């Protein structure tokens, strides 16, 4: 061992940078239908292979194949398709509104719609979702009024969050949607705590949490897994691997040498890797995990393997760090196209109906946006009364905040006087 070379530091790098031609052939993608589907009551160890594989239901021709085919009703498939398309239309319009300066920030989930939508359909309406900023599809799939979402984005007079929270960081208790945090990862142990409480109360509702592959490096991810495993919490822990964390490739989060789903193995809980652009696969795996949780078998970690087609957010410029056409090369296609093809293959859908639906949704979003703007927009208002900014810091407003509230009122009055 004497004449061994000195140590060297390994730095992970993205496979493709601007100027490169993306080539994803290095991904060994199992064929659709190949993955085994263990019983919901199986031992976690029986799922190990699933954390290295990839559950796929839709094959390249759009046929549903294999043990994981959830055999959904055409009507459910159409509703899922609609929710994905509405999410996309909503994203497009709101992105434009930000570009027009009507709000300061927006963030799309383009290409990842099957994640939130497929999972929302696999959960019960009253299961509690602890999402990230990229699961707007949960609200849309649960038919939450998009005008209400827009009101939050515009921080207008109808914004239930009273202008306090950055655009898109929704909160919708009645939709089983937990208040989003700007700090990534924190929701993971919180979801586990909610699930533990539900189990403690002998309730039947479960919790679901989402985290990005990049954010899974945070200690919160570990804390969530430990508590979920130790107390067998009825929770679904979802890790959305969309290949990018702003400009950092998934390798920087530890994805070079292992799948993220395999993180589950060391905790003795099932870890399943699923094609995140295949709504049927997403639904089936989520449903499996939900049934398992509801029957007191504890948590499941699901890695949703997808691709972030959108820029990170309106503040981002992906052309600085990845090839502009990388998304088109993504081998697992587009979730909307794939479900559309599947439905057409079933004879339950057509290009005409698809175009018609797209047009209808376009109009729905346009109308909602027009309505929302009548309640105000961030840049011009109207907003809630600034005096409300002192509310809800505590349940009852303490003296110091009452003083500060009065001080602000005095200063505003002053400003009115001499403009």
């Amino acid at each position: 061992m004497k004449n061994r070379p000195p140590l060297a530091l390994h730095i992970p790098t993205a496979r493709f940078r601007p100027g490169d031609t993306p080539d994803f052939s290095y991904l060994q993608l199992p064929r659709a239908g190949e993955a085994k589907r263990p019983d919901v009551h199986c031992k976690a160890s029986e799922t190990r292979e699933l954390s290295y594989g990839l559950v796929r239901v839709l094959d390249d021709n759009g046929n549903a194949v294999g043990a994981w085919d959830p055999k959904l009703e055409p009507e459910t498939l159409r509703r899922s398709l609609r929710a994905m398309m509405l999410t996309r239309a909503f994203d497009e319009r709101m992105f434009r509104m930000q570009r027009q300066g009507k709000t300061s920030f927006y963030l799309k989930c383009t290409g990842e719609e099957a994640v939130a939508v497929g999972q929302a359909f696999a959960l019960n309406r009253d299961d509690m979702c602890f999402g990230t900023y990229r699961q707007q599809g949960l609200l849309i799939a649960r038919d939450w009024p998009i005008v209400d979402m827009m009101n939050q984005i515009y921080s207008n007079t109808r914004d239930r969050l009273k202008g306090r929270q950055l655009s898109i960081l929704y909160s919708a208790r009645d939709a089983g949607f937990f208040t989003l945090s700007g700090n990534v990862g924190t929701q993971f142990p919180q979801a586990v705590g909610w699930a533990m409480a539900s189990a403690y109360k002998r309730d039947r509702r479960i919790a679901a949490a989402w985290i990005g592959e990049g954010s899974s490096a945070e200690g919160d991810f570990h804390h969530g897994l430990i508590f979920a495993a130790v107390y067998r919490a009825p929770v679904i822990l979802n890790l959305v691997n969309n290949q990018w964390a702003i400009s950092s490739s998934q390798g920087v989060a530890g994805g070079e040498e292992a799948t993220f789903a395999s993180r589950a193995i060391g905790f003795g809980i099932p870890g399943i890797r699923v094609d995140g652009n295949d709504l049927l696969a997403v639904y089936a795996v989520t449903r499996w995990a939900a049934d398992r949780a509801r029957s007191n078998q504890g948590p499941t970690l699901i890695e949703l393997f997808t691709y972030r087609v959108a820029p990170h957010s309106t503040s981002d410029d992906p052309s600085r760090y990845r090839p502009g056409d990388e998304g088109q090369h993504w081998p697992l296609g587009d979730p909307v196209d794939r479900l559309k093809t599947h439905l057409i293959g079933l004879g339950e859908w057509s290009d005409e109906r698809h175009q018609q639906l797209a047009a209808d949704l376009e109009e729905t979003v346009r109308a909602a946006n027009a309505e929302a703007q009548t309640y105000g927009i961030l840049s011009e208002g109207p907003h809630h009364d600034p005096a409300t900014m002192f509310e809800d810091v505590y349940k009852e407003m303490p003296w110091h905040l009452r003083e500060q509230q009065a001080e602000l009122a005095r200063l505003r009055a002053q400003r009115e006087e001499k403009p």
Partner: protein
Amino acid sequence: MATMNMVQALNSAMDVMLARDPDVVIFGEDIGFFGGVFRVTEGLQQRYGEQRVFDAPIAEGGLVGVAIGMGAYGLRPVVECQFADYIYPAFDQIVSEAARLRYRSGGEFNAPLTIRAPYGGGIFGGQTHSQSPEGLFTHVCGIKTVIPSTPYDAKGLLISAIEDDDPVLFFEPKRLYSGPFAGYHDRPVEPWAGQPASEVPIDHYRVPLGQASVVREGSDLTILAYGTMVHVALAAAREAEVDAEVIDLRTLWPLDIDPIVASVKKTGRCLIVHEATRTGGYGAELSALVQERCFHHLEAPIERVTGWDTPYPYAFEWDYFPGPHRVADAIRRALAS
């Protein structure tokens, strides 16, 4: 009524709340079967079962994160942080989450959790079993910070904290667990028994949050203190033979400002004491508040007697701890000027 030391009083508070409210659950490191390293939860698991009082993994960030989720569901979790010195891994969950939940959700969600943590020195615990981090939390809006100085207050305040719908940080002066301690480390240890404040109702009662108590009326100067330092302040006043008014804050934030302002306007002098390091400590806020509100009544500079701006040095505990001698010295200085 029963005679209780502070450990028993805290235990009784949780006992009462577990009995009254099925939504109260208690967890933390070693607090279940074992009853906690300071025995504060002793017997509770045996009485209320493992579903309600249980051991947790060693991950303070996880403890608080999980408690926030439970609170959002509708429970009233009480978590123990084994030592205040170990609360930092939970800092993000406390500051970015628990403290913000109600605000950022427009009131849809809140985190009615109580975080208990023994704090302060006096037991030769060295740098990492002696800290007083309260000043890091009084700067954070959305949380309440409570520190008792007697068994009676400890039980009444802890019950109020558990019943409170906002997150409460409840720091327990570990040196006061078994007896009042005025800083005379070289004298025999006093037990709580015999002290009036060790007479504690067995049942439910509250000491409201946000109310200070004037533990000694006086006219020469006002001393603001909390936790262990309340006892030190009283002893120092005796040593200095002055007629001091001593106010036990009990709740650090939201602060009970009126009796403080009234007292300083009366005495014209103010001394602030805490064990935490001086710079940027809670004493600075107290000093600023008193100065802003009593400026024209002040006859001498507001003084702070605090821990030095160093980690708590193991072998030099009694040179570090701001004992009665040091406080008395400051009292004399305040009265001289």
